[in-house]
C-alpha cells in the first residue's frame, strides 16, 4: 500500500516495454498508455492516506508526499491526454517515449518521499535522465536538429546543477556526518554562522532551482521549451516543477533559527527570476518560449512563499504551484491542439482562434489572464496570498518589486489574448479538438475559476499537507 503508486508506475513502464517488444501498433500503445496513466492516478489516490517509512527511514510516506504524488499523477494524466496523438514523435519510438515518461514520473514520485541525501540524488537523476532522452526524441523530418541542441543543453545544464548539488551534499555529510536529511538539517542549524553550512544548503537547493527553472539555473529553459516537442514541453513545464517545490519546501522547512542569510539569498533569486523572466518574455514570438520565460517569473513568485519560513507561506507556495501547473497545462492543451503536425506554435498562428475553436480560445484566454494574475482566477488569489504572506513578514520592498512585475507581465499575456480574440483568422480552417480534449479543457477551466473564487478549501488542504512535515 505504501509503495503502491511507485510499483504501479514501474509496472506501467514494464507493460509498455513488453508491448514494444512485439510488432507495435502505435494506436494501441497510445490507448494502453492512457489506461496505464489512469491506473497510476487511481493507485496514488487509493494510497493517498498511507503513512509510514521505508528503506531504513530514507523514504517517508506521509500526507505531504502522498498529496504531491496525487498531483504529479494528475498532471501526468493530463499531459498524456493532451499529447495523446504524439504528433511530433517518430512512430518507431512511441513505446520508448512512454516508457521514459513513466520512468521519469517514477523518479519524481520517489523524490517527493525521499528524506535521505543519496535517495534524493538517485530519484532526481532517475527522473532527469529519462527526460534527457525524451527531449531529442522529436521527429527530425524538418532536419532542423534543434531538438538535439535542446537535448544537449538540457543535459549539460542538468549535469552542472547536479554537480552543484552533489558538491553541496558532500559538504553536508562532511559537516554533520550523516546523510539523513532531518539529522543533517538539525546539526546544520547550529552552524549558520559558518559560510560552509550556508553554501552547502544553497548548493543542494540549486538542484531543485534547476528543475523549477529559477534564476540562476534557468538558462536551459527557452531553448529546451522551443526544441522539445509540444507534449514533452508540457511535461517539463509542469510535472517536475511540482516535485521541485515539494523538495524545496521540505528542505527549507527544516532550516530553523538563524537562517536569515538564506532568506536574503532566496529573496535575491526570487526578484531576479521575476524580472529576468518577465522582461525576456516581452519580446518572444514563439509561444512556448514565452511560456518558458513566464515560468521563470512564476518560479520567483513561488519562492516568495517559501522564503517566509512560515507554515502559511509554504501552504501558499503549494497552492500557487498547483494553480500554476493547472494554468500552464491549459495553455499547453491549446498549443498541442492547434499545432497540426506537432510544429511549434508562433503567437501569430493563434490569429482569430475565437472563430476556429471558441472553447480553446476561451481556455487560452482564461489561462493567460490567470497567469497574469487578473482576478477572479487562481493566479490572482495565489499572488495575493503570497504577497500578503511576504508583507506579514515585513518584506515591503520585496512585495513592491513583485507587484511591479505583475504589471510588466500583463503586456505579453495580453498580446496573446489580443491575437486570439481581437483579430480575424488568417486561415479559416477550424481546429478539431476531440471530446477528450474538450472535456479536459472544461475541467481545467473550472479548476482555474473555482480555485480562484473559493480558495479556502484548497488552502486548508495545503496547510494540512504541509503541516504533516513540520
Amino acid at each position: 500500500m505504501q509503495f503502491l503508486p511507485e510499483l504501479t508506475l514501474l509496472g506501467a513502464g514494464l507493460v509498455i516495454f513488453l508491448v514494444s517488444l512485439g510488432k507495435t501498433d502505435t494506436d494501441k500503445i497510445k490507448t494502453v498508455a492512457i489506461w496505464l496513466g489512469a491506473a497510476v492516478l487511481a493507485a496514488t489516490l487509493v494510497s493517498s492516506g498511507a503513512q509510514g517509512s521505508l528503506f531504513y527511514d530514507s523514504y517517508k510516506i506521509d500526507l505531504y508526499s502522498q498529496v504531491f504524488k496525487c498531483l504529479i499523477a494528475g498532471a501526468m494524466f493530463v499531459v498524456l491526454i493532451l499529447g495523446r496523438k504524439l504528433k511530433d514523435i517518430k512512430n518507431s519510438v512511441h513505446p520508448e517515449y512512454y516508457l521514459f515518461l513513466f520512468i521519469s514520473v517514477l523518479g519524481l514520485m520517489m523524490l517527493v518521499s525521499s528524506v535521505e541525501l543519496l535517495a534524493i540524488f538517485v530519484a532526481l537523476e532517475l527522473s532527469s535522465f529519462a527526460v534527457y532522452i525524451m527531449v531529442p526524441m522529436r521527429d527530425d523530418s524538418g532536419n532542423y536538429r534543434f531538438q538535439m541542441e535542446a537535448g544537449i543543453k538540457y543535459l549539460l545544464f542538468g549535469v552542472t546543477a547536479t554537480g552543484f548539488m552533489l558538491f553541496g551534499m558532500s559538504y553536508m555529510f562532511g559537516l554533520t556526518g550523516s546523510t539523513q536529511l532531518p539529522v543533517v538539517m538539525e546539526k546544520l542549524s547550529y552552524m549558520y554562522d559558518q559560510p560552509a553550512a550556508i553554501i552547502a544548503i544553497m548548493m543542494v537547493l540549486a538542484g531543485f532551482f534547476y528543475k523549477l527553472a529559477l534564476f540562476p539555473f534557468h538558462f536551459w529553459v527557452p531553448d529546451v521549451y522551443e526544441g522539445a516537442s509540444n507534449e514533452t514541453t508540457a511535461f517539463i513545464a509542469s510535472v517536475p516543477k511540482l516535485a521541485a517545490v515539494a523538495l524545496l519546501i521540505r528542505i527549507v522547512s527544516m532550516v530553523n533559527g538563524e537562517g536569515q542569510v538564506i532568506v536574503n539569498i532566496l529573496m535575491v533569486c526570487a526578484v531576479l527570476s521575476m524580472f529576468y523572466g518577465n522582461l525576456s518574455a516581452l519580446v518572444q514570438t514563439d509561444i512556448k518560449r514565452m511560456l518558458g520565460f513566464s515560468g521563470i517569473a512564476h518560479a520567483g513568485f513561488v519562492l516568495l512563499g517559501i522564503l517566509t519560513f512560515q507554515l502559511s507561506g509554504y501552504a501558499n507556495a503549494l497552492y500557487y504551484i498547483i494553480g500554476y501547473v493547472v494554468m500552464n497545462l491549459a495553455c499547453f492543451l491549446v498549443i498541442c491542439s492547434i499545432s497540426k503536425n506537432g510544429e511549434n506554435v508562433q503567437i501569430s498562428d493563434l490569429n482569430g482562434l475565437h472563430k476556429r475553436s471558441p472553447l480553446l480560445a476561451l481556455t487560452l484566454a482564461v489561462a493567460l489572464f490567470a497567469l497574469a494574475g487578473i482576478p477572479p482566477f487562481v493566479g490572482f488569489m495565489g499572488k495575493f496570498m503570497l504577497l500578503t504572506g511576504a508583507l506579514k513578514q515585513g518584506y515591503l520592498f520585496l512585495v513592491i518589486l513583485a507587484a511591479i512585475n505583475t504589471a510588466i507581465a500583463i503586456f505579453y499575456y495580453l498580446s496573446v489574448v489580443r491575437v486570439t480574440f481581437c483579430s480575424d483568422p488568417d486561415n479559416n480552417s477550424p481546429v478539431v479538438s476531440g471530446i477528450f480534449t474538450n472535456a479536459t479543457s472544461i475541467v481545467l477551466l473550472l479548476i482555474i475559476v473555482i480555485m480562484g473564487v473559493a480558495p479556502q478549501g484548497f488552502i486548508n488542504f495545503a496547510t494540512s499537507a504541509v503541516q504533516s512535515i513540520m
Partner: protein
Amino acid sequence: MDQLLINPNYPHILSTLVFLPLAGAILLLFVKNEFFARYWALGITALTAILSIPLVSAFDTSSAKFQFVEQYNWVDSLNIQYVIGVDGISILLVMLTTFIMPLCVLASWSYIKTRVQTFMICLMIMETAMLGVFMALDFVLFYILWEAMLIPMYLLIGIWGGPRKIYASIKFFLYTLAGSIMLLVGIIWLYKTNNYSFFIPDMMWQSYSLTAQIYLFLAFFLAFAIKVPMFPFHTWLPAAHVEAPTAGSVILASVLLKMGTYGFLRFALPITPEATTLLMPYVLWLSIAGIIYGGFTALAQQDMKKLIAYSSVGHMGFVTLGIFVMNIDGIEGSILQMINHGITTGALFLCVGMIYERTHSRELRSATGVGKYMPIYVTFLTFFSLSSFGFPGTNSFVGEFMILAGAFKHSIPLALAAIPGAVLAAAYMLRMLQKIVWGGTDNPDQSWLKDLNLREIITLCPFLFFVFWIGLGPQPFIDLMHISVINLLDQFHAHQAQAVAAAELILH
C-alpha cells in the same frame, strides 16, 4: 460593525443586483442565437434596473450607515469577507449603473453586428463588476472586482472597436492595471496594520503615521487619478473613447470614470485624512489644470468622440475639485456632478454613435448641417450640449454651481481659476453644435440621412428626463447623500482636530 445596517425587508437585494447579470451572462454562453441574445440582455439589464428601485424607496436618508448590508465569510484564513452595502455616497452611482445598462444594450442593437452573444456577455459581466465595486465593503472584494472589470472592457474595445482598437485597448488595460498595482500593496499594508482585517469601514479614521498616510495616499492617488482620469494621467482616455463601440464609450464615461472619484471619497479621504489635507493643494491645482487643459484640447478637436472625451477630462476636473475643497457644497456638488456627467456625457456619446451608424465617420466635418434632415436628432443633441456646459435649468448647472460655491468658500483664487473652464465648455460645445446643426456653405450632401427611429428615441428619452429632473428639482438627489456627506466631513474635521491636538501635545 456598528457602521452597518441590515435592512430586514430586503435581505438579499444587493446580491441579487450583482449576480443577476452574471447569471444572465453564464446562461447566454449556451445560446447561439443573436436575436435572442439581444432580447435576453435587454431583459436581464432591465430587470436589474427595476429591482434596484427599492434601494431608493427603502433607503433611510437619516442614517449615514451602510444599508442593505449582506455579510458572509469568504476566505477564512485571510479573513476576507463577502460584505456589501450602500450608503449615501454610493447609492446614486449604483442607480446610475443599473439604469444606464439597458440603454447601452439598446444603443448596441444594430450597432453591433458581429459576435453579438459575446458582446452581450461582456456587457453583463461589466455590470456585475461595476455594481460590485460600488457596493463592496471588503477591500479584497473591491480590488477583485476593480481588476476583473478590465477583462470585459478590454474585450469590448479590442473586439468591437475602431481601426486603432488594439492600441487603445492595450493602453487602457496597461494604464489601469499598472496604476492599481500599488493600491494592492497598500491594501495588504492596511490589512496588516488593522489587525488582519480587510473590512473597509474599520480602516477609516484610524491614526496611521503621517509618512504611512502619505505613501498610502500616493498609492490611492495613482490608482484613482488614472481612472478619473486626472490631468497628467488622462492619455488613455481619448484613445479608449475614440476606438470603443458606442456602448463601451457610454460605460466608460458614465460609470468607469466615476470609480476613480468614488475611490477618492470612499478611501482616500477617510483612510488618509491627514495626507489629504497635506496634499490637497496639489490635487486641487491638478484639477484646475485638467479643467483648463481639457477645455482647450476639446476646442481643437475635429473628431466628435475625441471632443467629448477631452470634455470629460475637464468635467471630471470639476468633480475632483469639488471633492478636495472639503466642504459640504463641494462634495455634494461633486457627487451630483458625477451623476450629471454620467447622464450627459453618456447621452452625448450615444448621439455621436447614432451619427456614426449612419455616416460611418466621427469627423465633425462629415456631420455638418444635419439639422435640416434630422430635426429630432438635433433637438436631443442641443439639450445634451446645453447640459454639458452647465446651462441653467439643466443638471450640470446645479452640480457645477455647487462645486464652484464650495471652491469659493475654500479659496477665491482657486475658484476664479476654474471659471475659464466653464466658459471654454460653452465654447467647444457651441462650436460642435453649430457645425452639426447648421454647418456652413460647404456642407456635404446629408439629404439621404434618416432621422432617429423609435428605438433610438426611446434610448435617449430617459437621459433627457433626468437632465431636466436634476436640473429643475435636485433636492431628492441631494437628500439621498446629505447625511453621509455630513458624516464624512464631521469625521474628517474631528480627526483633524484630534491630530492637531496630538501634535501639540508632542510639541509641548
